[in-house]
């Protein structure tokens, strides 16, 4: 069971490249690696605590209103993250803009709460949240690295390409996000087939 959680979350059922969930933050905030890391951490935090509460309440919540309950719980943790960033990391909060509150509607979180946390015991739910969050995290960072290197010639703000390199502006724009995401999904599919 534990092995399967790891394999699914990080690779075979990867939230971005396999399930194609959470596309809004994936495409919108991955202009720089720092943004990708911040968004990844925020999602891991929300996913972890939402799974915790949902798993604990799984026998209490009536079936008909479970989605409403999950949404309230998720929204609470997202708002906590939003307030925390505004108070302690105003720069990151500004860079991520409206995409922090939008974590509420990130399907990865609601999806994991519904598909996993509400059906499994606490320890497994927490592990699943961390692994899925980790999968989302590496997906974001990979996407953001490609876009930052090609779009600005930097990584985490440090210049790594020679000044003669002409940044591809399309990479920091929305079309760049789609192009890189498509390419990465194609690579993942190809690797899968080779196996």
């Amino acid at each position: 069971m534990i092995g399967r959680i790891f394999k699914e979350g990080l690779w075979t059922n990867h939230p971005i490249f396999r399930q194609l969930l959470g596309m809004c933050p994936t495409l919108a905030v991955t202009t720089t690696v720092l943004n990708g890391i911040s968004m990844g951490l925020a999602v891991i935090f929300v996913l972890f605590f939402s799974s915790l509460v949902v798993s604990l309440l799984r026998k209490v919540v009536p079936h008909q209103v479970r989605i409403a309950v999950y949404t309230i719980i998720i929204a609470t943790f997202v708002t906590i993250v939003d307030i925390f960033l505004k108070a302690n990391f105003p720069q990151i909060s500004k860079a991520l803009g409206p995409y922090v509150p939008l974590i509420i509607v990130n399907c990865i979180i609601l999806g994991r709460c519904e598909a996993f946390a509400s059906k499994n015991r606490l320890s497994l739910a927490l592990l699943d949240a961390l692994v899925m969050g980790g999968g989302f995290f590496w997906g974001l960072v990979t996407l953001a690295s490609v876009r930052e290197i090609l779009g600005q010639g930097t990584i985490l703000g440090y210049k790594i390409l020679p000044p003669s390199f002409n940044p591809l502006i399309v990479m920091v724009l929305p079309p760049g996000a789609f192009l890189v995401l498509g390419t990465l999904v194609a690579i993942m599919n190809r690797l899968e087939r080779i196996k």
Partner: protein
Amino acid sequence: MKDSLKYNLRVIFVLTFISLICGFILSFVFNSAKAKIKENQKKDIYRAIYQIVDDCKNVEEKSINEETIYWLFNDKGELIGYAYLSQGQGYQGKIKILFAIDKSMERLLGIEIIENVETPGLGSRINEESFKSQFKNLKTNVPVECVKFFPQKKNQIQAITSATISSRAVVGILNKGIQNLKSLIEENDR
């Protein structure tokens, strides 16, 4: 029938209870962070003021009609100008601009972009020094204008290439802010 009533009551109870707890937690978190968030915003504004106006040594806040105006003083304690935060719609979202104007309100001392969500690499270049420095010493008796090539008049600036909408938005927000500030100061003097 009795069962379904019981079930419905349980639904109502669970939803109410969870919402209450969540609301309670949130109000607690927000209250503990409120002061810090306000302080961050204030810090941004003060940093911008000192960046624009070199010889400004002291800033006093004063609200007129519930709008905050920053009165700028030099090291001798003389009034050298005013600063004001103006905001409006940009290309993708709100832009907040802080600008400073001299005491006679005829000359712009400069602007700083406090907040923007313009396109990275294009519109967000309104935050670059080469764009912002154009606003230094502009005349303010006529509205500032945004031109695409080679500004010639004392009230013109050059738009950023391929970010005309963002550049125009900045100019529009600025002009609106100058008008607001002038009428607020007049009201205060009266």
